[in-house]
């Protein structure tokens, strides 16, 4: 019998696991994908929103502001790239200026530092901004965060503190049996005292396994462009247009890896699992982005992607026990600003909701940090040299575009969260994330994964089962 089963290992599930790992509880996380943070968590704008935008008093506002306050410390503890670069919400027409004033008021109500900047100051802060821009709302506490590492490292920390993770396992049924739940997956049956539903896009499907629900998840797709490491200074802040009913609009931002993101679109759709992109939508994203920054170097484009937001029909985060049972907790509809909210949601769910039904006894063995990660390129030359002399694998470069060494790859393969696929390795190390998109290093990455897991390259997956890169070995007899 587990104390807690968490369904879903996105940012939210991972941070709930991390917060619960402080206590003497047995916790199992069940994830249907082949990696943690593999759906909505990995395909978004990678922003640590300040919280000026959500309607005051909503859960979105509360958890966003709390999460953003936690983010610098969390990123330090978990060794995650983060930058408090500030956000600018830009008015490009005179008629939009009153809206900036409204947003400023909203920011004040939410307890978020903000001020208005006029056109002149805006141009100084952002030399590439649309020259027609009239002004902006500056939120200096907003920033950027690595969305790939956030769930991976939160889960690593949770697992180092005793949490168990099962990947590639899909929950197919849940039933209440007196004082506990029986959770059935495509592989096993488990018993747990408490179930936390953090199943993202499918959280409504999971919630319905227990009782009829009055809410649903309406998938809403966002398509993006990724630009290569461009000379710094295309933008110096996260640039938003004014928000609308459809969302925060098309933003232009740098990432923690020095790339630029342009997007997202906002498309209501039926299929929760489709992350396809299309030309008209992306063309529209481009046109909208150019309203903010007219000269975006789209010739530096290295990737397009789409993510699906788990938009709740209630328009606010659903973070509460089910109607019937205090020990079945729904954490659903965590759309934007979900990424930044996740550490705060994790704390709340662990201490307030799980804490209401289970005794929380702090573990003396709990460690809040992950073992530090080494990136030779971030070290001064002398220390880098000493590192390589001691561990030569840090001098052997596997990914040339992103300068990822063999040492870094072996490090992530040795950590507690399994790194089972090429994509999982890419998310952790950036190998294959650069301008050649794995053209040069992928065969070597396939070989390293095959060696590590004692399988043939034919069995190495790009992502989910069925996604191997190569189909057949040739010239076998000659080898």
């Amino acid at each position, binding site marked *: 019998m587990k104390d807690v089963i968490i369904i879903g290992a996105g940012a939210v599930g991972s941070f709930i696991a991390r917060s619960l790992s402080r206590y003497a509880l047995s916790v199992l996380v069940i994830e249907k994908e082949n990696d943690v943070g593999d759906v909505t968590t990995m395909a978004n704008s990678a922003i640590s929103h300040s919280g000026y935008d959500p309607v005051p008093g909503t859960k979105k506002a509360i958890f966003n502001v709390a999460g953003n306050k936690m983010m610098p410390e969390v990123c330090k503890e978990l060794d995650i790239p983060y930058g408090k670069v500030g956000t600018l919400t830009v008015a490009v027409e005179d008629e939009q200026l009153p809206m900036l004033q409204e947003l400023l008021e909203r920011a004040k109500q939410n307890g978020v530092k903000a001020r208005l900047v006029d056109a002149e100051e805006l141009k100084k802060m952002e030399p590439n901004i649309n020259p027609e821009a009239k002004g902006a709302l500056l939120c200096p506490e907003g920033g950027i965060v690595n969305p790939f590492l956030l769930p991976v490292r939160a889960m690593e920390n949770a697992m180092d503190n005793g949490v168990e993770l099962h990947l590639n396992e899909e929950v197919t049924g849940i039933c209440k049996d007196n004082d506990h739940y029986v959770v059935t997956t495509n592989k096993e049956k488990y018993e747990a005292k408490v179930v936390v539903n953090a199943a993202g896009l499918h959280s409504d499907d999971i919630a319905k396994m227990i009782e009829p629900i009055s809410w649903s998840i309406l998938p809403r797709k966002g398509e993006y462009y990724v630009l290569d490491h461009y000379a710094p200074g295309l933008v110096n802040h996260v640039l938003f247009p004014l928000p609308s009913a459809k969302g925060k609009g098309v933003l232009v931002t740098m990432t923690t890896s020095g790339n630029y993101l342009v997007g997202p679109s906002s498309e209501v759709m039926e299929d929760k699992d489709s992350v396809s*992109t*299309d030309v008209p939508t992306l063309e529209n994203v481009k046109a909208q982005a150019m309203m903010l920054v007219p000269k975006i170097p789209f010739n530096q484009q*290295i990737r397009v992607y789409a993510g699906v937001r788990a938009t709740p029909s209630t328009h606010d985060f659903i973070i509460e026990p089910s109607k019937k049972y205090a020990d079945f907790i729904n954490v659903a509809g965590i759309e934007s600003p979900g990424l930044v909210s996740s550490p705060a949601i994790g704390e709340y769910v662990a201490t307030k909701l799980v804490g209401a039904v289970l005794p929380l006894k702090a573990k003396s063995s709990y460690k809040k940090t992950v073992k530090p990660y080494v990136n030779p390129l971030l070290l001064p*030359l002398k220390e880098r040299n000493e590192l390589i002399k001691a561990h030569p694998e840090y*001098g052997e470069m596997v990914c*040339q575009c992103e300068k990822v060494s063999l040492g870094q790859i072996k490090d992530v393969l040795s950590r507690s969260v399994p790194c089972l696929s090429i994509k999982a390795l890419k998310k952790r190390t950036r190998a294959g994330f650069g301008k050649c*998109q794995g*053209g040069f290093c992928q065969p070597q990455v396939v070989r390293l994964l095959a060696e590590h897991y004692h399988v043939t390259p034919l069995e190495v997956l790009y992502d989910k089962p069925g996604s191997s890169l190569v189909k057949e070995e*040739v010239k076998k007899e000659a080898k």
Partner: protein
Amino acid sequence: MINKDLVIIGGGSAGMAAAVGAYDHGVKDILIIERSPFLGGILNQCIHNGFGLTEFKEELTGPEFAYRFIEQVKARNIPYVLDSTVTSINRDKVVVYTNAKEGVVEVQAKAIIMATGCYERSAGAIGIPGDRPAGILTAGQAQLFLNEYGYLCGKRIFILGSGDIGLIMARRLTLEGAKVLGVAEIMPWSNGLNRNMVQCLYDFNIPLYLSHTVSKVVGKERVERIEISEVDAHMKAIPGTEQSFNVDTLILSIGLIPNNDLLNSISCTMSRTRGAIVNEHFETDIDGIFSCGNVLHVHDLVDNVVAEAREAGKGAALYIQGKLPREDQVIACLAGDGVGYVVPQKIVLDESDDNLLFKFRVKAPSKNVFIEYAFNGEVIKRVFKPVIIPSEMEIESLPKNLLKTNQGTLTVSLKAKEA
């Protein structure tokens, strides 16, 4: 910090030939830095033949061609390091590289030659519509998997783009038992060498769809199906022209891009085609830093790469020996009507040679045209071309004595033959 007269970054065909060129012009204190475990670069995965017709007057495979140059490097005892990655350079010509054996090495060079080649444009770079499953590879990546690692990337294959590597891979994959269902090319003409069209597509009955592009990829985990569509004059897919192919793999041969991260990191001036702007000695706008081969502009033939790189090596040697003019006055070379780009983009006009060599590509195929050189508005040379196509680089020499001063503009354009 160690000192070297000349550091060459990249030990492929360009890097090796540049080293040979510099050595033969008197600079012997050279270091070649190569990222892979072998000299030879991409030639090592090009096991097909067709290399060396100009350089060696015989037909070699890629590894054989590389071997000839490795022998030339070894015969001169030119030092090189392998498995070594350059992590930074600066405008004062300090090169930092790293490898497992030496750790971090800083080299102060008198001159640097960039010979880092190019990389392939990826699916992400053109944003192919639809799903993003496994099974979308660049042609070079499929070639690397097959020829160096021994793995076939798929069994039913469609190829987007008629670049030479794509054509070569159409044949190679067919010979290894895969079915290549077709090649789509967005332009109304092929982008590969004629000989590759014939030997790799026509000889194997592989259909070529001109003015077509991939308009949709379908597949959850691995490619299951693709759609191609005819494109209009703006290269947009025309609705209603879709054709569907059940394939497990989509291979891309949609262009090569100079690999210029290092020069970009030190704000070297770049051309529209993403190579450095160089003079006739292949010196960039940064004093003593040279560029040649595919990192300068993408070549069709390695024979042209090595010829260019030897010249760059010579240029670097002259620079180190203090024999290159350091003058402000230069002639700007411009691509005129019908011409995509010109290398070199500027001329310092010193006395080292009698002839200037121009390389350029035309924007579209033409017949019965003149290549016209105009210096400060005055036509100084015309060359008649019965046929000229974008997939074949033009190399033309221009006697220096036709240029009367060392300032102004030289424009290379295409002119229709008067009726």
